[in-house]
């Protein structure tokens, strides 16, 4: 303690002498820091804003080299919402992503309760397996799933997609929710058990409400993952009435094969992206929490 004091005491004159110079230096650093902050924000947001701007540009202005448009229009939005393929794909995406989240949370959270709170012999190995599966490469079972879906007559159906989407949502949900259940204090359920409550009642009435924040985080992340999924949707659906939004956007074609209908593509892109951006803004904290719980604690 005394050494620190002397060291600090000895340093006082030198720092005092250099104060003026240090102030100038720190101001430059401060400015550089804010330049960096602005650069990061612009780099991250520019493509989004550019797409947004393009989606409101009249076609004749879209295909000009002018950067700032003279006028804005809703034409492209009208165009995509008149396209039955796009509207159907929106409905499909909502159904598929929604069902995936409900099933993954329903099955996953009861499993996580058992793994996190109840006595279970193979807890360690099961948890390890779950963690491994969260990183499982989907491409490795593409042909197995392809044949399986055809055998089960689930090929080119929304049910088939939901089933395959559980591959990447269930292990993740189980893993993150197990962490949540583990973090709750033991006294909570002990009191209830003393009062004679059954384990299932303890789960349903005491623990589940407390893990609501966890359910929101994992549900959001599972929804975003299912909503954005492309490989399975592309491979396991063939007719327009079963395709999801990412597949339809990737296959938008214009009058000629050489020039794509960029205005419509950008408008469709914004329609599927803006809800996500709003979710991100509202639930920023929850999303980050869920994302990092999946990795850092592992």
């Amino acid at each position, binding site marked *: 303690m005394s050494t620190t004091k002397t*060291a600090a005491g000895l340093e006082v004159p030198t720092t005092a002498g250099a104060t003026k110079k240090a102030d100038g230096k720190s101001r430059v650093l401060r400015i550089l820091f804010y330049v960096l902050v602005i650069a990061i924000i612009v780099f991250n947001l520019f493509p989004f804003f550019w797409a947004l701007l393009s989606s409101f540009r009249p076609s004749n202005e879209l*295909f000009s080299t002018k950067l700032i448009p003279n006028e804005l229009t809703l034409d492209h939005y009208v165009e995509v919402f008149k396209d039955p393929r796009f509207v159907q794909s929106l409905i499909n995406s909502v159904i598929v992503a929604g069902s995936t989240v409900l099933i993954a949370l329903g099955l996953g959270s009861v499993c996580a309760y*058992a793994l996190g709170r109840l006595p279970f012999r193979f807890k360690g190995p099961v948890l390890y397996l779950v963690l491994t599966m969260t990183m499982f490469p989907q491409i490795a079972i*593409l042909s197995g799933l392809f*044949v399986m879906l055809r055998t089960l007559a689930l090929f080119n159906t929304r049910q088939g997609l939901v089933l395959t989407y559980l591959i990447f949502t269930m292990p993740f949900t189980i893993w993150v929710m197990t962490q949540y259940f583990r973090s709750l204090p033991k006294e909570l359920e002990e009191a209830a058990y003393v009062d004679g409550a059954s384990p299932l009642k303890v789960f349903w009435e005491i623990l589940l409400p407390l893990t609501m924040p966890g359910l929101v985080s994992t549900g959001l992340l599972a929804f975003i993952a299912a909503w954005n999924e492309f490989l399975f949707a592309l491979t396991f659906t063939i007719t327009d009435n079963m395709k999801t939004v*990412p597949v339809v956007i990737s296959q938008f074609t214009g009058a000629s094969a050489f020039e794509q209908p*960029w205005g419509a593509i950008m408008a469709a892109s914004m329609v599927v992206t803006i809800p996500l951006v709003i979710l991100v803004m509202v639930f920023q904290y929850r999303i980050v929490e869920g994302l990092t719980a999946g990795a*850092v604690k592992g």
Partner: protein
Amino acid sequence: MIKEIDLYARQKRLAWFLIAPSVLVVLIIIAYPTIQVFVYSFMKYKLDGVTPPSFVGLDNYSFVLTDPDWWSAVTNTLVFTVVSVILESVLGLTVAMVANSKFKGRTILRVAILVPWAIPTVVSSKVWQWMVNDIYGVVNIVLFNLHIIPQKIAWLATPATALPVIIAVDVWKATPFMALLLLAGLQLIPKDLYEAGSIDGATKVRQFWAITLPLVTPTLLVALVFRTLDALRVFDIFYVMVGTKGGLATMAVYNQQQLVSFLDAGVGSATSVIILIVIMLFVILYTRFSRTSFE
């Protein structure tokens, strides 16, 4: 006492009952197809519904391993993985350190970096495809008007210019994820270490090398594993931006094409098994590396 034993038995029974449905689903959707992929990889298995499947030994493997298209896909995937993961780590750490400092507008920064992460990959690919459009793309217009390039470039027309663009898209999209993980790692570093460092007269640069980097390395390694495994199976960006005929396929694109375009579950499965082996090699490499340097 009897009551307690009774409760324990009930809890144990309930645990099995609650875990069973998830185990069943995982067995059906992950374990069964994985086994099937191994079996199909040794079979001639056309999905045309005409030719009956038959065992052919290692034929599918030798087909894939002698196919120049496969090796070009491997090269593309490895170059993409190494370059993008390195860039994402460096930029991710920079962004994480900025987001970890106290300043006005910190929340704006945190929301801003989540936007590229949340946008569907197909949409990001389409947006960037538009941005690098040969005639009307904003990238060409700006670079040309600033006289940085003598003429506008058809970026996605040749692999040599398309790959850097694709890497840029991935870096844009995945750096936020890296930054968020690293930010969580940075927040675990005790503040007094920096205070002690300052008292001892260590400069900010010295503090970075002596405190920040060593203490954030475990998180960095986890993030690296996640990103590498993700990058090795990259599909969406390549498929959307250059299609399947541009000579710029990845391992996953090659695999999907064998299955969907050539309806060949045999070769497709053999490709899957090889991809799985490549990914396992990377995992072993990382675990070896992290053991030798941290234990």
